[in-house]
């Protein structure tokens, strides 16, 4: 939990509008765990004002480097995409509660919808370090948005692609594809609709899972209660948890979907 002026090492447009940015930030690289995020100051001026939460996408501990993978969604991310090698970016983090390790035995899956692969890639890096190999269900609208398949396979995992338009892999949703290939543990990230249906499947089949959520953030450190999401624990009525500290990763069964 640091405030760092990270230096941009590399900025790469993977496909139009989707960027991977590598930064030098040794302490962050050392402490980061998969599922955690950085709260990034995109502008120098006061407009846009707030930081933007972006997941930690990959880490190179030896080089002390951290990568983000992000979609240009609006003004903040557009400013981020305009940063060039050598520029400084003020980051806060690593923040939040990440994914927990899978049980030592049992089949592990990862389900990613589109940009949802962002935090899951870091998880896959870490899993392969402990020789745990996962079935990776990569979903996207269309073929070219199936990000990082070969890198993921190079880590030793198996990739199962699914596209909405059928241009690659399974013609349908990533959750449907997962349902045909159930496992003991699953880690999910993607659009709310996808996660909601994933959680329904997990409940139905009593599968242990964790999902990474998004909510608009103010402070990123648990102080402002902006990033609330409805959760339940056993026997409890719902309560609001903070995505920035109790999350962004939640046990699948705790999330209350609208």
């Amino acid at each position, binding site marked *: *939990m640091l*405030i760092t002026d990270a230096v941009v090492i590399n900025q790469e447009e993977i496909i139009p509008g989707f960027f991977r940015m590598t930064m030098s930030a040794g302490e962050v690289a050392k402490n980061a765990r998969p599922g955690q995020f950085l709260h990034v*100051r995109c502008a120098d001026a*006061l*407009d*846009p*004002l*707030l*930081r933007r939460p972006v997941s930690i996408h990959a880490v190179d501990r030896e080089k002390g480097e951290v990568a983000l993978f992000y979609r240009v969604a609006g003004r903040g991310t557009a400013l981020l995409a305009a940063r060039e090698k050598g520029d400084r970016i003020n980051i*806060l983090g690593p923040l939040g509660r990440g994914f927990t390790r899978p049980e030592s035995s049992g089949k592990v899956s990862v389900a990613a919808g589109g940009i949802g692969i962002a935090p899951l890639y870091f998880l896959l890096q870490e899993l392969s370090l402990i020789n745990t190999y996962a079935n990776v269900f990569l979903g996207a609208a269309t073929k070219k948005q199936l990000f990082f398949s070969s890198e993921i396979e190079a880590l030793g995992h198996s990739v199962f692609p699914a596209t909405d338009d059928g241009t690659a892999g399974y013609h349908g949703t990533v959750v449907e594809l997962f349902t045909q290939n159930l496992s003991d543990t699953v880690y999910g990230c993607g659009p709310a609709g996808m996660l909601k249906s994933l959680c329904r499947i997990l409940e139905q089949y009593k599968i242990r899972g964790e999902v990474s959520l998004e*909510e*608009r*953030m*103010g*402070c*990123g*450190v*648990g*102080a*402002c*209660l*902006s*990033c*609330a*999401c409805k959760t339940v624990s056993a026997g409890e009525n*719902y*309560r*609001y948890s903070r995505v920035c*500290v109790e999350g962004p990763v939640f046990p699948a069964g705790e999330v209350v979907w609208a």
Partner: protein
Amino acid sequence: MTPQNGGIINGAKTKLAVNIGGIAMKNPVATASGTFGFGSEYAPYIDLNLLGALVVKGITLQPRAGNPTPRLVETTAGVLNSIGLQNPGVERFVGELLPGLAGYDLPVIVNIAGDTIQDYGQLAARLDRAPGVAGLEVNISCPNVKKGGMQFGSDPDMAAEVTRVVKAGTGKPVIVKLSPNVTSIVAIAEQVARAGADALSMINTLLGLAIDLKTRRPVLGNGLGGLSGPAVKPVAVRAVWQVYREVKLPIIGMGGIITAADAIEFILAGATAVALGTANFVNPRATMDVLAGIKRYMIENEVQDINELVGAAHR
């Protein structure tokens, strides 16, 4: 004045201590309620002991779940929020959160909000007995709750009544937090002063709205929200200026302070202390940067005591 109360830089001695209606602050920089949680959230980033005061999130009698999401949206140079006073209720606050603050050497000010005038009285009485509470900030200006809130702050008589009830319930210093969403903030301030307030804080958020072009509905789950951040600063400085002229109570000024220059603007307008809200989101060390900048300004301009600057723009 003890040495900790000031700072010695380049041999110049700057006196930073201020007094807000009986609350001794070692410097004029506080946190704004609702933006700094209960303090510990920011402890990894700054030494809380260096703050002038800590004002905690608004507390109600009963626990509150808060408003539906989204609760926050950015506007140009500002933020609209509708948290809806999510908080654990006064009992859990006193039992679980307050003890954690006992180790710090700073005044803890508790922001209280009620649905009814009686609520305020009960909150005051309950907190009067709680150890480690330096004073109360009475929120009669929250735009994000259905009952109470801003309503109390919009009517001079009701504002006065709330003040009287709180004063009756506690011997601790009472700061009343004013809403800018009124025709005359001076009229409210005057009544509140007459009712016995020890200090004023201003401003709470401006009532605002953002609409999503895709859904064609308000962005925030609760519809309307409260605007804060640099966008509102001129309105806040004006409010402090107007009230300082007419009411002889110390003021904690806030609304859009990001830099030391912003803070000094409030002090020149008449604020004895300042609070930072939204700025903490942008820069978790904002309070410390502002404090350092105030010291620098004082040294450069040979201001020995911060109190000399209070209201200087009126002279």
